[in-house]
């Protein structure tokens, strides 16, 4: 009979209308600014730079290798390498970024910078309310705004952060073992060269091991 299809459809809309008063399946919206849905663990919005120490600028893991700058598909990262070097988390002397800017208006949140970074230093944040009143300076995010602590990273991506911490701990252990082995080899070599006068030869301290021991303990949680 003509019209039965329409009536059947009307029954569906009536069900949905009535259901929207009591059935969460039928009323799925939330009142956004007041109510919020927790973001997914894998969610990604905009990159940030991880730092390990209290002072964000001193503890940045980034060594300004510029790999992310090169690999970034829309080319939105600008890095200026420092002139001097400083010790990184495992005591190696490294450059650090004198400037590290990301253009928020160009970034497409693709996560490729995170994937290519060999130093676990750039990660994706889940913060999505990124609007800004200043469309010129405000959209170029500098390293002070980008720096966030490792604790923050552990909070937003627990699984990923655990893996990242494990990688860093392994790297640190490797560096320490290598420094120790180097020092021992050097001492042995010096002892062999000096022959019987061993006490004098061991005096020059092994170079890499001492700063490593001082700073290595911090990031390995």
């Amino acid at each position: 009979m003509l019209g039965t299809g329409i009536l059947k459809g009307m029954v569906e809309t009536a069900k949905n209308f009535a259901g929207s008063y009591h059935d969460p399946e039928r009323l799925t919206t939330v009142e956004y600014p007041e109510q919020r849905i927790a973001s997914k663990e894998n969610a990604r919005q905009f990159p940030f730079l991880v730092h390990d120490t209290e002072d964000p600028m001193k503890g940045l893991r980034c060594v300004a290798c510029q790999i992310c700058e090169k690999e970034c598909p829309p080319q939105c990262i600008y890095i200026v390498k420092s002139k001097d070097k400083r010790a990184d988390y495992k005591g190696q002397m490294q450059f650090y970024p004198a400037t590290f800017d990301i253009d928020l208006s160009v970034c497409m949140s693709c996560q490729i910078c995170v994937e290519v970074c060999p130093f676990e230093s750039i990660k994706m944040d889940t913060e999505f309310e990124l609007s800004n009143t200043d469309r010129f300076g405000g959209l170029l995010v500098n390293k002070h705004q980008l720096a966030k602590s490792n604790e923050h990273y552990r909070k937003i991506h627990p699984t990923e952060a655990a893996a990242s911490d494990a990688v860093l701990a392994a790297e640190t252990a490797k560096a320490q073992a290598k420094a120790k082995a180097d020092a021992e080899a050097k001492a042995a070599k010096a002892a062999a060269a000096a022959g019987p006068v061993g006490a004098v030869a061991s005096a020059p301290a092994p170079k890499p091991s001492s700063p490593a021991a001082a700073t290595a303990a911090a990031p390995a949680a």
Partner: protein
Amino acid sequence: MTAPVDTSDPKQLGADTDGTQFMTFHDLAYDAGKTVFQRKAQPVGQGREGELLEVAMGPQHPSTHGVFRMDVVLDGETVVKLKPVFGYLHRNHEKIAENTSYLGSMPYTDRLDYFCSLTNNWAYALSVEKLAGLQVPERAEYIRLITAELTRVLNHTCLAGFLLQDMGALGTPLMYAFREREKILDLIESLTGARMMCNYMRFGGCRCDLPAGWLDEAKKVVAEYPKFLDEFDALLSGNEILMARTQGVGKLSAELAISAGITGPMLRASGVDYDLRKVDNYGLYSRYPFRVPLGSHGDVYDRYMIRMLEMRESLKILEPALKDIPEGPVVDPKAKLRGFRPKPGEAYGRIESPKGELGFYLISDGSPNPYRYRVRPPSLINLTILEDMCLGQTVADAIVTLGSVDIVLGEVDR
């Protein structure tokens, strides 16, 4: 091409060789439509009834699914000529890809057909894997199959909503469709980190493994989806108004569809049994039996029904695949992210995307970026036949016909 006409000069206004005059706005270069024009031509000096009117529908028209223009020539309400105009969303995708690394174009492929970024990713990854000879681990193949079928369901759900919106069913079907789409988007977000711009596949596998509990969530969504399809069918498929608006509208014969290179649900609605999942046997589709629904009339209603049926078939693939997925690595250990240089050669990888055959043609010269990168977008090629489907019908039917083609302008214009 004819020289442009000065529309302010009445003498130039379409004075044809046989002394008839008719009204055109700017374009005498409508070459093929001569007989159509003459049928409606009025002798000079007579009244203006029966004049043709050229209307530019779009690029801001809400029914054109983005920035797309249809230049229609109307006789009253009947379409006598239709010219699709696109390119408003052109952003040089292919040239950009030729200047970035292979990995760097992966996020750009998300933005082709932005409803189905995972199938775009897969097609691109497939062609690069062919080029470089990479193997994909079994678990990654399963993830690809699952995400691609979820994407198909998502796309067809949206399309059904948008098509109904084009017919004037403002809101209700689209809102129901979006409510269900949200469930799949949540799944995709918890897997890939993004709702639409997934950037998930990698050459030789996938970017990351499934998060804990994802499979259970997916099983739940897949198990509950038929309920929504039943609801949608009850709401619409038997609706007399929908039938009156779509049956016999926008007909496309099988011969014309084949000779125009139409693929996907639109081709199958015309009754041609051609599905790359069956023909090419890529991925793991040979392991799961599914039917390819075929239409018999090739009209808009058939295209709508094909999509409703395809969703059910996709769910039939998903259900066992979610149970069978094995443990293992998700990426080929030989594949590397940086410094990826495939050996010189060429490859064409294609998959059955929700809209049709999506192919990527790549030529490598051994450098880190492709020498030539070409996308075969299903939306664009399905759109070329629009005029043949719309001639002789009303404007309202032309809009419905366009809606049934299922275009995404990101892919049409690239």
